[in-house]
């Protein structure tokens, strides 16, 4: 049988093999045990594993206060229980037991980790894309003089990438002992570049098809990219499994999204002077939808009467008039 002590992320921190019928493995804080635990919730002599003749294992609790748990239930102290493979909890430590009888699944197919193999060119490309966007955004404002303005854009882009990457590499160092700078740089810069350029292009398309909703679709895409990036960072920097990493990434995306929403929209949502003018105009560009006729448009304006009335109702609900209760 193989006995493994598991760490907090379910990876094995200690493994020991026992052979021959009748072989015993004691688990506890006592130095005489086969597996010595540094766990204040475990007894000195906590559990006993015995390899039976048929290859299975008997798990016994040695009459402890906290007991030994298998699948959430306490193992009876006297008789114990017999297993082929199991994960038991001794105190607060997880112990995995495996015997020859446990069937093994097929080996996992080896997939070449593209990012890891090409991390240098990818990281470079990502950072370049971010730099380009920072400079482009500054250039759009046509600063005068030009050079300091563009430098500012480049430095801001670099700074953002650097801070984000630094946080994740530090996490990787603390969790896994390696920095993985280039991999994290790749994830961060690629994600950022995709969001930034994607959002800008979405604006172009939104004007071309005159579909204001597209900008909102753009926000959803940006959110998905952020989710993917954080998930990848988590997988690279920690030992968390897929589901936990995904849940964490989802939660972080949600927090970032809500913060951005509060800052960007929520603050002036109640602003009575706020006007939504539609997608930004693109001068002299090709447009997919045909122009409207003026009468057609004025008919649409008539519908604003209802929309405005609805806004008024809402406003009166939120902030009633002084004599509303009369």
């Amino acid at each position, binding site marked *: 049988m193989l006995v493994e002590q598991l760490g907090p992320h379910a990876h094995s921190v200690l493994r020991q093999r026992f052979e021959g019928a009748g072989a015993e493995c004691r688990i506890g804080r006592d130095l005489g045990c086969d597996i010595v635990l540094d766990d204040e919730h475990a007894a000195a002599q906590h559990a006993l594993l015995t390899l039976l003749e048929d290859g299975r294992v008997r798990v016994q609790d040695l009459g402890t206060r906290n007991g030994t748990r298998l699948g959430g239930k306490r193992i009876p102290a006297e008789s114990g229980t017999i297993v082929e493979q199991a994960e038991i909890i001794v105190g607060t430590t997880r112990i995995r037991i495996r015997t020859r009888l446990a069937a093994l699944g097929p080996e996992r197919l080896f997939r070449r980790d593209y990012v890891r193999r090409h991390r240098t060119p990818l990281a470079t490309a990502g950072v370049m894309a971010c730099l380009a966007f920072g400079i482009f955004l500054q250039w759009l*404002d046509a600063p005068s003089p030009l050079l300091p303005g563009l430098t500012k854009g480049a430095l801001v882009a670099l700074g953002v990438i650097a801070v984000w990457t630094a946080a994740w590499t530090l996490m990787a160092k603390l969790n896994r002992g390696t920095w993985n700078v280039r991999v994290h740089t790749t994830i961060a810069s690629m994600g950022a570049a995709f969001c930034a350029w994607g959002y800008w292009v979405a604006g172009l398309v939104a004007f071309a098809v005159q579909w204001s909703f597209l900008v909102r679709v753009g926000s959803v895409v940006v959110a998905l990219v952020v989710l993917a990036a954080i998930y990848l960072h988590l997988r690279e920097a920690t030992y968390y499994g897929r589901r936990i990493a995904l849940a964490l990434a989802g939660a972080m995306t949600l927090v970032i999204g809500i913060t951005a929403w509060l800052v960007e929209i929520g603050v002036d949502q109640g602003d009575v*002077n706020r006007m939504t003018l*539609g997608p930004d105009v693109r*001068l002299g560009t090709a447009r997919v939808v045909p122009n409207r006729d003026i009468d057609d448009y004025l008919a649409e304006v008539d519908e604003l009467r209802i929309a405005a*009335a609805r*806004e*008024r109702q*809402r406003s009166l609900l939120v902030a009633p*008039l002084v*004599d509303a209760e009369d």
Partner: protein
Amino acid sequence: MAEGARKTVSPFVRMACGGLSARCTLCRSASADRSHPALSYTWDMKTGRLIAAAWLCLFTAVAVPQAQKPAIAAEKPAEKPASQAADTTATATPKAPAASPDERAPDEATPAGEGVDAAAVDADIAAQELSGEAQVRLDAARDAVVQIRGFFDSSESSAFHGSGFAVKDGRRIVTNYHVVALAVLFPRKYRLEYLASDGRTGPLHVLAIDVRNDLAIVAADDLKLPVLNLWSEIPAQGERAWSIGFPLDLGLTITEGVANGLVENSIGQRIHYTGAINAGMSGGPALDRRGRVYGVNVSVVTERQLVGFVVPAKHVAALLARAKEPLDRAYSAQQLRQRVTAQVIAYEAEILEAPQDAVGTQQMRGYTLPTQLSRYVECSTIDEKSPHVRVRVEAIRCRIPSGIVAQPGLYVAGLSIQHRLLQSLGMHPLQFERQVNKLAAAPRRAGSAAHVAPFACSNALVSLDGFDARISTCVRQYRLLNGLYDFDVTVVEIDDTSEALVSRLALQGVAFEAGRQIMERYLGGLQWKP
């Protein structure tokens, strides 16, 4: 007499010497402690400042006409060393009235010529001279003027206040609509009280309102006051006039000024009065030189100095005929608001009425831009500040130059149009586009969340006459005055990558149909021809 004589001294001299006497007070306190070594430096500083102030005083005085010399002479001793000057200036003010009538500047307050011979005019001027005339006017009007105070709910301290005066049979009191507006719009929440000159107080009721001319008639059941006589004509320009009221809750006050005739091009007629009308004097009587009431004070526009407005008295007569019974007894709050709304809509309909002939337009680089959407619109071509050194902006701005108060804090001015033609000076199309978008989206409306609901908007790309444009229309309703709308239409021309028209029409406080019609007139007027 003392008061009058001081007035002959030019404001400059008064300012300089006022400062001087204030400084002397400082000197006196400093000189008392002169023995203290630490204070000696400060004292020297103050002496220096005193002498400087005295020189300034003298200098300004030399610059004013000879006629005012006596006043200067009185101030002159201030040049002496500080210890003496302190004593002298303290008595300087009483000495000032040495000015005798024949030495006064002859150009002061000449009434507009009425074809009277010179002697009569002189006598008239003499009668108008500073003197105690203001005092006489005030005494004559004192009992007819009341302070109108508004209270919220059962509160004991007033929420707002203004002035009013008795007319007709002494039971009708004239005031401004904006003074009593809260009590009209929220009859269950605000109540009005009068405070008469003899200290009597009691409840007031609104009998009639005229939002357009900012007038209201109020009455109290038990109140009968001496009346002031209305005079339905406009005083000649330059005629001396007085305004009476309770500015800033400081008690009954009279201010002296000059009536300057009807304001040119004003839709809601206003007489321009050059003199102080401060908050709280609203609704008080404006008296001409014979003591007749030629109008009612209005103090709404606050950011101007000494430019006041007076509603001509002829509008009061029409309103008096309508004043029958208290509005708050006859109508519900809802109905009262509807009446106010209806009056605002009627006003707007008149000022926004289409001109007889075609809509007036102006040309700008091939564009025909509608400007005269109604005959009251005034336009100016302004040299607008460019948002960027490489963008040239030409702008025409049009507006209707007057407005009304629909509700306290809500000034409705009707219409404004802004045409801006942007030209790129060698910018990349993307860069120019960015400037156009920034300009189009720049915030520009100042509405308070207390008065209006948020905008509802719709936008589309529309083919106009000769060019394509993105049109964004935003409409919002007034919260209290149901049926009034604000319109905001932004037109951005999208054909050219180096030239763009950003045009905007803003309407305030209009009925929806009216707004839509003007919008149609405006969009129909936009045209481009190569």
